[in-house]
C-alpha cells in the first residue's frame, strides 16, 4: 500500500501537550513539513519562547534553545551570527513577541537579522491562564479584562505584521490563518517562503499565524475556529505585508 500521509521527519514521534483544538500543533507541523521540503533539519536551530510553546523543543527533531520571555529574537541573533550556515527560527506567542519582547523583535528586523520568526497570535495569554494580551480584541473578555477589553483604559491591539512591514530590514512579512484547510495551505506557502528567504540570505522574515485558544476563550474547538473567522480576521487582515521581491498587500 502506498503511504500518502505521514509524520514529517522533522517532527518527533511524541504526544503534544497542547489542549484539544489548539492550533499550535498545526503550526508545528507546517514548519516541520517545510524543514523536510528544504532538507534543512540537520542545520536548523529553533528557539522556543516562554508561553504554551515553551516545550516546542520536545516536538521538533532539530537543535533547540529555550529563551527567556520575549528574548527569542536576541537569542536567535546570537546563534545565527555565530553559525551563519545554520537556519535559525524563533517561535513566539503574542505576549512573548508583542508585549515583553517588543524591543527584541523590532530590532532584530531592523538589523536585518537573517532569521525567521513564526508568530502565533491567539489574542490571549494561554499558559498563564487567559490574561489580556497586546493582541486582545476590543471588548474581548479575559481574566484581566473581565468586562471585556475597554479601549478607554486598556488601549488597542497591536497589529504586528503591519508594524514590522515598515522596517527596511524585514524581507518578508505575512499574516496567515489556521482556521480552515485553505488558510492552512496558504500558511504553509508563507512558511516556505520565509525559510527560503533566510536560505537565500535575504534578511528577516516573519509569519504571523492567527490562531485559536479554545481553552482560554471558553469555546469548543469548532466554535473557536468560527470565533477566529468572525472576530479576529476583521481585526487582523490576512496577506503579505512585505516582500522585497516586489510583493505587497494581497
Amino acid at each position, binding site marked *: 500500500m502506498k503511504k500518502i500521509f505521514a509524520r514529517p521527519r522533522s517532527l518527533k514521534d511524541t504526544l503534544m501537550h497542547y489542549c484539544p483544538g489548539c492550533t499550535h500543533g498545526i503550526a508545528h507541523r507546517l514548519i516541520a513539513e517545510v524543514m523536510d521540503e528544504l532538507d534543512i533539519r540537520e542545520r536548523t536551530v529553533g528557539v522556543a519562547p516562554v508561553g504554551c510553546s515553551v516545550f516546542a523543543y520536545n516536538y521538533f527533531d532539530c537543535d533547540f534553545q*529555550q529563551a527567556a520571555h520575549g528574548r527569542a529574537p536576541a537569542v536567535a541573533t*546570537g546563534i545565527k551570527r*555565530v*553559525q551563519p550556515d545554520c537556519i535559525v527560527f524563533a517561535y513566539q506567542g503574542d505576549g512573548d513577541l508583542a508585549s515583553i519582547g517588543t524591543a527584541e523583535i523590532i530590532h532584530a528586523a531592523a538589523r536585518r537579522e537573517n532569521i525567521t520568526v513564526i508568530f502565533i497570535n491567539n489574542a490571549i495569554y494561554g499558559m498563564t491562564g487567559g490574561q489580556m494580551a497586546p493582541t486582545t480584541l476590543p471588548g474581548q473578555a479575559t481574566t484581566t479584562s473581565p468586562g471585556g477589553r475597554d479601549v478607554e483604559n486598556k488601549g488597542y491591539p497591536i497589529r504586528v505584521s503591519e508594524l514590522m512591514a515598515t522596517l527596511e530590514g524585514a524581507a518578508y512579512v505575512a499574516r496567515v490563518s489556521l482556521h480552515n484547510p485553505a488558510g492552512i495551505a496558504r500558511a504553509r506557502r508563507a512558511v516556505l517562503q520565509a525559510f527560503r528567504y533566510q536560505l537565500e540570505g535575504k534578511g528577516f522574515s516573519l509569519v504571523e499565524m492567527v490562531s485559536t485558544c479554545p481553552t482560554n476563550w471558553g469555546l469548543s474547538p469548532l466554535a473557536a475556529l468560527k470565533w477566529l473567522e468572525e472576530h479576529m480576521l476583521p481585526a487582523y487582515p490576512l496577506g503579505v505585508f512585505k516582500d522585497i521581491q516586489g510583493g505587497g498587500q494581497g
Partner: protein
Amino acid sequence: MSEPILMKGNEAIAEAAIRAGCRFFAGYPITPQNELPEYMSRRMPEVGGVFLQAESEVAAINMLYGASGAGARCLTSSSSPGISLKQEGISYMCGAELPAVIINIVRGGPGLGNIQPAQSDYFQATRGGGHGDYRTVVYGPASLQEMVELVMEAFDVADRYRNPVMVLGDGILGQMMEPVVFADDQVREPQPKPWATTGARGRERRVLSSIYLEPEDLDHHNWKLEAKYEQMRQKEARYELVQMEDAELCLVAYGTTARICRTALEKARSAGLKVGMIRPITLWPFPVKAFGEAGANLRAYLVVEMSTGQMVEDVRLAVNGARPVAFYGKTGGAVMLPQQVVDALQDLAAREGVGR
C-alpha cells in the same frame, strides 16, 4: 614575552578577550565602559568575530545566551545600571549552563547614581542579582596587568564549568592607563563543546534549556549545579597576603581600594603600626581560607570599600567572631585618600589597644 603596551583599562580588557579567543561581543553604551565596545567594534572584524551593538542590555545578554549556546566564546560589558538589566540573562545562562564573561566597570549607585568609580555592586555580583540558586565566579583585579590576565583566564574558567564568570572593575580601572604585557603563551586554543547547538548533522539533536517543570527534576538540576559551585569554592578562591607575618591590624580590600590600602599600609608601618593586608582576588568564591591563616599577633580587621559596607559582611562571616571587624568606606566616587585609611587604622588601634 611581548613588550609592554600602554593601554587604557577598558581597551586592555577587550584586547585580552580577543586574545583569549572571544569571537562574539554584544553590548550597549554606558559610561564609564564605552571604550570597551568601541575597541571591539574595530577589532572584532579583524579577527573574524562578531560585534553587535544591542538595543538594550537585556538583548545583549540574551544574544550571548544564543551565541554561547552556538559554541562561541562570548563577552559583554556594562556598568552598574546596565548590569542590573543583564541579571535576567545571567540567571538563564547559569540555569542552561552556558559560559560567558561579563565585565562590570562599576559606577556609583543606586539608581542612576553617577559615573564615578564605586564598589557598591559587590552584593549584586557575589550574591547573584538574578533569581534562583546560582553562583558566578567573580574576579576583582587591582591592576591592568592583573585584569588582562584574569579576563583571559575567565574564559577558561567559564568553559570549564559551563557557567558565566564576572570581572568586577570600577571607573578607575576602566579609565586609567597602565603598561600591560600579553604573554604569547596566553593565547587559548578553542575547546570542543559537545553540547553546543550547531545543527544536528549526523548526530542526535541537542537542547539548551533552563526549565524543569517536575519538582524532582529541578531539585536534581539545582543540586547538580551546586556540586559545580562547590568545585569552584574548592578550586577557584584566590587572594594575596601583604605583610601579614607580624601584623596586628589587617586591612581587607580589593580592586582599586586595595591599591590605596597598600600605600596606607606603608604609611601606617612608618608610623609604627604593624599593619598587613588580605586582598581577595576572587570575590566569589570568597577566600575564607586567608582568614584562617591569621597570625597570633592579629588583633582586628579593617575592611575598606568604595561602598557603605558590602564585602565587610563576607569578612565577618569568614572571621566568625574571632576578632573585631571594623569598616571604612566612601561612596559616589569620593575615593578615599591613603591618609584617611591610616586615620581609620589609628582609630581602630586606639579602640583595640593595639601598639600600647
